[in-house]
């Protein structure tokens, strides 16, 4: 009964945003701005309401059905060719339920916020149309039952990301940023596609996720023994994840993606789309857990990215760039979590991060709004007085991301750190010290996180205004209400995952999804160790905050300058993001451009245009010139032609 309702509601969840996108995208010319807002914001809220209803309804079933709670519904048979049969099916299990709630919940708030943020924009309807289309794609990604449908959503969010980063496309830099995001993502998507092909054709598998899961987890599974192939598949899929989730080496697009409107950064480049890679790995946990090497790689890339991006974040002056690198860094944590086998922890961090990072971005948007487009934090300061709500919510989120005890980030990040410290892959294929190394990297990143976040906070909100022509004011209610709600989430979201077996509701909820994989992960931890590590990370967080306070508010106020002067090379390298963009430009972009130019000149202009297009025209013209010689106006030539024909005929007949 409830399941039937939920199956119907799944369509509402997925297609309500699509309807909003279609209405605003095609008919905005005839719609009033009020209607555009209502449709654009109403659609995700409708999705959220449906998701919430489904959640409550399914929770009610948990007591009766101890088994796996999942709802599936098929709209139509999408691809049916020979051995391959793929349906357009939606699939709701606890994991996708969590993701759906996060996406629709945070997404709805950001839509609401956008009403205030974008109120003067001439392309208001286009903005909401793209944003709704993004919601649709993201929900398709989350709820797609088949890996291929997930990929459709995956590409859809990539497209919307491109459209929204380049939303103000008349600005060349922003258009280029959109292009960069799209192209870098394409590289990752190629890996994803390759992984799907291998899965489908090498391993004779299916792309249907539950079916795949059954095939893998059955006792006499064939796939479970193909470690090499599984490693290839999972590595390919992980390449896709590094593109979408901005991990080393494909993270370079995310900081540039800040060119889009700030709510877009909050929704797509912080809370939802960039977590798709983490979600995908968690979704396929049963497959990844079969490949210990891939797991180690995932965790390693995650830990490295966390540290690397955090260190860059220390030296950035653009408020959104700092948050962008922070996002890259936090995504690294999530990958560390899922890579170590703490899938629940990774998803937990994904959820808490969605709250506080969305709140941070929206707060930054509020600041930028108030500062009339100024994004340089060196020119801000003292905003606490004029923007109390923004300041309070921003502070809460900073505390949460820094990992101050009691706030959401603390619980989730701690779980990941603890997981990195104690979890081992059951196969023993990975060296035991690797986890400890990752833990150390992640702890260092945590210190930096606390430092740069509070550097950002202090430079922005405390002290005196360093810009003279700014008259900051608090943002309207449509912007502050989402901020308040998200800040509340940043506080409360952590409490569903208390570090105790009994009270970790989040893990209990996700238990059915990760149970099989969990058996293959060995834990060497205990409660005492967990609390010790908690204490350690709390100390680290507070140290980081203290450092930031000393350097930007307290006695060491000259220290940043001094360090920058003492280590000019290091400072410049960090300030310039380690020259990674330049390196990529040298290694890939410029050779590619040369190749493109070459192929343009020789293949396109030379072969295609010269030989094929103009060549065919020239040959037609040549034939025309030849035949024109016959039609030369000389009547006698025509007579000769006739007579030669007659002669040939006679020759042939007699």
């Amino acid at each position, binding site marked *: 009964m409830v399941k039937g309702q939920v199956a119907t509601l799944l369509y509402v969840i997925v297609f309500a945003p699509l309807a909003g996108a279609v209405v605003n995208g095609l008919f905005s010319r005839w719609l009033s701005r009020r209607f555009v807002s209502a449709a654009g914001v109403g659609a995700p809220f409708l999705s959220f309401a449906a998701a919430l209803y489904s959640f409550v309804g399914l929770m009610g079933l948990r007591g009766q059905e101890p088994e796996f709670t999942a709802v599936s519904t098929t709209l139509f048979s999408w691809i049916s060719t020979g051995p391959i049969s793929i349906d357009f099916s939606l699939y709701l299990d606890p994991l996708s339920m969590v993701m759906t709630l996060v996406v629709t919940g945070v997404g709805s708030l950001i839509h609401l916020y956008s009403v205030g943020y974008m109120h003067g924009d001439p392309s208001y309807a286009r903005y909401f149309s793209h944003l709704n289309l993004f919601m649709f794609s993201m929900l398709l990604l989350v709820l797609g039952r088949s890996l291929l449908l997930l990929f459709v959503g995956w590409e859809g969010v990539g497209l919307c990301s491109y459209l929204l980063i380049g939303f103000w496309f008349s600005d060349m830099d922003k258009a280029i940023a959109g292009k960069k995001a799209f192209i870098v993502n394409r590289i990752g998507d190629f890996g994803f596609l390759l992984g799907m092909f291998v899965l489908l054709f090498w391993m004779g598998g299916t792309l249907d996720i539950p079916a795949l899961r059954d095939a893998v987890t059955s006792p006499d599974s064939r796939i479970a023994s193909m470690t090499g192939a599984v490693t290839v598949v999972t590595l390919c899929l992980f390449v896709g994840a590094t593109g979408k989730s901005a991990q080393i080496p494909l993270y370079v697009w995310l900081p540039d993606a800040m060119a889009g409107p700030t709510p877009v950064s909050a929704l797509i480049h912080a809370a939802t789309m960039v977590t798709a890679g983490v979600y995908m790995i968690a979704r396929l946990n049963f497959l990844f857990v079969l490949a210990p090497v891939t797991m180690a790689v995932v965790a390693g890339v995650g830990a490295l990215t966390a540290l690397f991006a955090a260190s860059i974040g220390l030296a950035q002056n653009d408020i959104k760039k700092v948050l962008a690198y922070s996002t890259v860094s936090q995504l690294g944590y999530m990958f560390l979590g899922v890579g170590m086998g703490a899938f629940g922890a990774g998803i937990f961090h994904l959820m808490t991060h969605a709250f506080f990072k969305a709140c941070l971005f929206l707060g930054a948007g509020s600041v930028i709004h108030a500062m009339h487009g100024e994004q340089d934090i060196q020119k801000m300061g003292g905003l606490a007085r004029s923007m109390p709500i923004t300041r309070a919510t921003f502070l809460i989120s900073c505390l949460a991301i820094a990992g101050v005890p009691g706030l959401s980030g603390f619980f989730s990040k701690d779980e990941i750190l603890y997981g990195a410290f104690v979890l081992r892959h059951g196969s023993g294929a990975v060296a035991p010290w690797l986890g400890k190394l990752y833990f150390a990297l992640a702890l260092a990143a945590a210190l930096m996180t606390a430092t740069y976040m509070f550097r950002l906070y202090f430079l922005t909100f405390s002290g005196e205004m360093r810009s003279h022509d700014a008259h900051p004011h608090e943002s309207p209610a449509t912007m502050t209400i989402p901020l308040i709600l998200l800040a509340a989430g940043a506080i409360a979201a952590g409490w569903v995952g208390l570090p105790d077996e009994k009270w970790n509701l989040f893990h209990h909820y996700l238990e059915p999804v990760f149970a099989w994989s969990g058996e293959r992960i060995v834990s060497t931890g205990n409660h005492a160790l967990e609390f010790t590590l908690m204490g350690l990370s709390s100390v680290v967080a507070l140290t980081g905050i203290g450092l930031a306070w000393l350097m930007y508010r307290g006695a060491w106020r000259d220290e940043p300058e001094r360090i920058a002067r003492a280590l000019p090379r290091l400072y410049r390298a960090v300030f310039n993001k380690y020259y990674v963009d330049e390196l990529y430009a040298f290694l890939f972009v410029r050779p590619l451009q040369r190749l493109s130019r070459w192929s343009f000149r020789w293949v396109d202009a030379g072969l295609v245009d010269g030989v094929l297009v103009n060549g065919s025209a020239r040959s037609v013209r040549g034939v025309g010139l030849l035949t024109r010689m016959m039609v030369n106006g*000389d009547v*006698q*030539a025509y*007579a*000769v032609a006739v*007579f*030669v024909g*007659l*002669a040939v005929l*006679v*020759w042939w*007949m*007699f």
Partner: protein
Amino acid sequence: MSGELLAFYVLAGAAVAGALCVVLPPFGRNPLHAALALLATLAFVAGVFVILSAHLVAVLQVLVYVGAVMVLFTFVVLLLNLRREEFIGARVTPWKVGAVAAAAVFAVKTARAVVAAATGARAADLAAPGLETYGGIRDVGRELVTTYLFPFELTSILLLVAILGAVLIARRREGGAP
């Protein structure tokens, strides 16, 4: 060889020779000479017609061709009063070579085929009963107004149109336009 046959060969040879004179350059360079050669040719062909017992047609040949058509030709040639130098510098173009080659092929092949087909065929005999009036006005006239009535009437329309067309084309444009 009977006299009739002999006359045929003489007349045929003369006709071919005249035709060659019309076409070949030494004569034909002057259109008036060509016209005269044509006149002779048509007269010889009229003779051939007589030998072929086509009396009416032979008379018509003389009247229409030798009389009307050739007068017209001569008249125009003299009217235009073409200077010789206008046609000097005859060129041997690929077209002309091809034309002569094609004509040679056509003539040789067709002649061989005709000779091969007609050799040994039954000869015509006009002495057979009922053929005394062959080629006379009565016979041909009857055919014209019975079997060929429609083409005959059409011919009159054709001639009318030709007269009108010739007048229209040859007329000097009013106002002195080209």
